[in-house]
């Protein structure tokens, strides 16, 4: 704005603040997921991720050994320290699970049936019982647990069986499933944009119409077709499926971009004797690079994240799992509540798309405008 004389907006700071606010708002879930991916299951259930840098007061239970009881005449007494070897600090304690923090450290608790329990802050305890102790008594205490972060979740995910195979499989699916539709769509888009033939308008309308057809409708018939022609459940099959599902958007996006290229260039090339193929390869294709790149990103992200198509069109053996299937069926599977694993797996699987996105994002912004401005 600075280079426009005399129009420096006095509301610039407001714009900046709202931008920062929106960015933070959008990032909160991701940050929460990132923090959670370093915590273990118990911690995640104990406190929210926003409290993770602070020590948490947690309650614990410890059994004291009944066989160490000695008789001092009046009472059977067990003495000892609840922190075996390690150090700790007791904040509060109690003798019943229902009231684990009834007494402050150092006090003497009167338990039921004339039993007493004293617990010092350093963990030393004295337990007295007028009758013989037959079962290990339980002591409940609260102590501050320091925050702890670990890479355990990532280790579990990365070193689980077949994770490397799944990673390679995802690439095997994603790269051809990105390139094939671009190749086909670029030709089709040129034809629909710059070649005159009967029914062109109708074809474009068909392509736009296909955009709204949900792919779930096509799963069963398409797999039936694959089985009939002998492709079956295979990588070739999933490439074709993704190509088919991606083509309408690709053709529509590229066609709208190509239609916006200056007519003069193309017409003068034709006047100079260029064939359609030459116009396409020498002029239109290089000029359409931003649109091609932006569609490549869309398609890459969609195929990378896909679970449904991969489950239907690939065999269900562990050796042909892609990452999403591996995470959903094997790592989480029967452990739906394992948030740490879920968060870690999410970050591992978005690593590659992030790299792709950041290396190609300048094309994405340009490409998003594809066909929208003439």
């Amino acid at each position, binding site marked *: 704005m600075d280079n426009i004389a005399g129009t420096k907006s006095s509301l610039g700071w407001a714009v900046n603040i709202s931008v920062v606010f929106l960015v933070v708002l959008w990032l909160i879930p991701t940050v929460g997921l990132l923090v959670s991916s370093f915590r273990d299951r118990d911690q995640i259930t104990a406190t929210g991720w926003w409290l993770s840098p602070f020590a948490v007061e947690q309650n614990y239970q410890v059994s004291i050994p009944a066989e160490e009881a000695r008789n001092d005449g009046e009472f059977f007494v067990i003495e000892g320290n609840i922190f075996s070897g390690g150090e700790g600090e007791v904040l509060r304690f109690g003798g019943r699970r229902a009231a684990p923090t009834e007494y402050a450290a150092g006090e003497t608790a009167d338990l039921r049936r004339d039993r007493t329990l004293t617990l010092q802050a350093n963990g030393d305890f004295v337990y007295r019982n007028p009758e013989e102790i037959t079962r290990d008594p339980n002591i409940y205490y609260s102590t501050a647990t320091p925050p702890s972060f670990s890479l355990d979740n990532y280790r579990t995910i990365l070193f689980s*069986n077949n994770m490397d195979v799944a990673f390679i499989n995802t690439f095997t699916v994603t790269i051809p499933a990105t390139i094939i539709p671009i190749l086909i769509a670029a030709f089709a888009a040129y034809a629909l944009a710059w070649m005159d033939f009967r029914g062109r308008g109708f074809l474009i309308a068909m392509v736009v119409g296909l955009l709204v057809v949900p792919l779930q409708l096509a799963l069963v018939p398409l797999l039936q077709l694959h089985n009939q022609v002998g492709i079956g459940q295979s990588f070739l099959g999933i490439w074709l499926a993704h190509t088919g599902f991606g083509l309408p958007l690709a053709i529509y996006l590229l066609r709208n971009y190509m239609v916006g290229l200056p007519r003069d260039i193309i017409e003068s090339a034709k006047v100079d004797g260029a064939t359609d193929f030459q116009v396409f390869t020498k002029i239109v294709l290089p000029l359409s690079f931003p649109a091609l790149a932006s569609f490549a990103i869309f398609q890459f992200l969609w195929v990378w994240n896909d679970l449904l198509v991969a489950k239907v069109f690939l065999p269900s053996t562990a050796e042909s799992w892609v990452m999403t299937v591996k995470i959903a069926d094997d*790592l989480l599977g029967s452990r739906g509540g394992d948030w740490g694993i879920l968060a870690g797996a999410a970050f591992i699987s978005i690593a590659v798309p992030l790299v792709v996105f950041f290396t190609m994002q300048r094309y994405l912004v340009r490409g998003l405008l594809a066909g929208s401005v003439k």
Partner: protein
Amino acid sequence: MMARFYVGVGALALWAGLAQADGHQPFAVGEGDFTWDSYTEFAEKYDLTGQTVEITGPWTGNEKEKVDKAFSYFASATGATVNYSGSDSFEQDIVISARSGSAPNLAVFPQPGLAADLASQGLLTPLPDGTADWIRDNYAAGQSWVDLGTYADADGVDQMYGIFYRVDVKSLVWYSPIAFDESGYDIPETMEELKELTDLIVEDGGTPWCIGLGSGAATGWPATDWVEEMMLRTQSPEDYDAWVSNEMKFDDPKVVAAMEEFGYFALNDAYVDGGASAVANTDFRDSPSGLFSIPPRCYMHRQASFIPAFFPEGTVLGEDVDFFYFPAYAEKDLGKPVLGAGTVFAITNPSEATNAFIEFLKTPIAHELWMAQGGFLTPHAGVNTDTYLEDSLRAQGDILLNATTFRFDGSDLMPGEIGAGAFWSGMVDYTTGAPAAEVAKGIQDRWDAIQ
């Protein structure tokens, strides 16, 4: 066509070979309490070298590891390769693959209703002749397992399609023995005592129950178990059967009363951890965690025998947590009804090796190999119960055997649209405030619509 088939088999055999190299067989042949005779006898009968059995089912993660280990003995006995793959969305996957002609050899259905659906579309192959007789003779309460595995085929003729392998007992209440002992609570023997205990815990300032219905797309199913339990405890088994087959309408006063019996526990803010409004939002996998927190967020949790898989790591069954039979009303004189469920094997793509695998499932060793790894109950009467991993499993097996009435999970037997749809969502509506009669009417309307 043939060439492609062989290439496919070759590739699969290669994969399976790789997979098998990873898994070790945990039990040496001939050692322990296992019925190894049945294994060697089976091994002598079959040589299936080079053949493959493909199986898909709902067991994933650590359950898949157990399955792989148990099935690896089939491979070592016959020379065939077994390829088991589990899926979190098995119910959808099997329909897609069966309809499009790429079904595995065997499918493991968690719900007989779904298997019956596929059978009626002609997508299942009946089990080899004589299987029904064998089950009748060798499974405890054999006839009921035969009935549960018999469905109408595409022409409406009843055929034997399913053999049960692994069952769950549902009528269990999990509790912490330590918490019960310290507070002086006794295990209730009757439903009246259970209700008294519930009130007593509230008087003592505690919360008696943890109930969670959340389960992703299947949210609501734990409540259907509750209603089925209550149905068995308030009405006769004949009424229960009539309800499941819809001869008794869903909005019958008896069914509505059973739903309200569930509501007695679930809709009372003082009875449930987090209050009644938390019931529908809590994931069923997280809900038992209240038993283990200090102080306890709840004292009891009604859930099937598989739930220990979701207890915190390091939990010792029998010490940290135990179970008792979800009791019946003393005054109603309906005996000791037990609700159960199970997974059923059915042939989706027949082959010689597939039939051999069905034979393998009939051997005691096939059951013992998973019993010894935990989390497995079986109705097979020929197994050596010493091979159960834990005493608690044996005790659950006893509940199964001592039942005066055994009934299969009703929602699993209803048509998928009801038992895996309207009933689930209806129970969520009920726990979030809709009146029972209205919910029941809505479910019956859906049922009328599909008939």
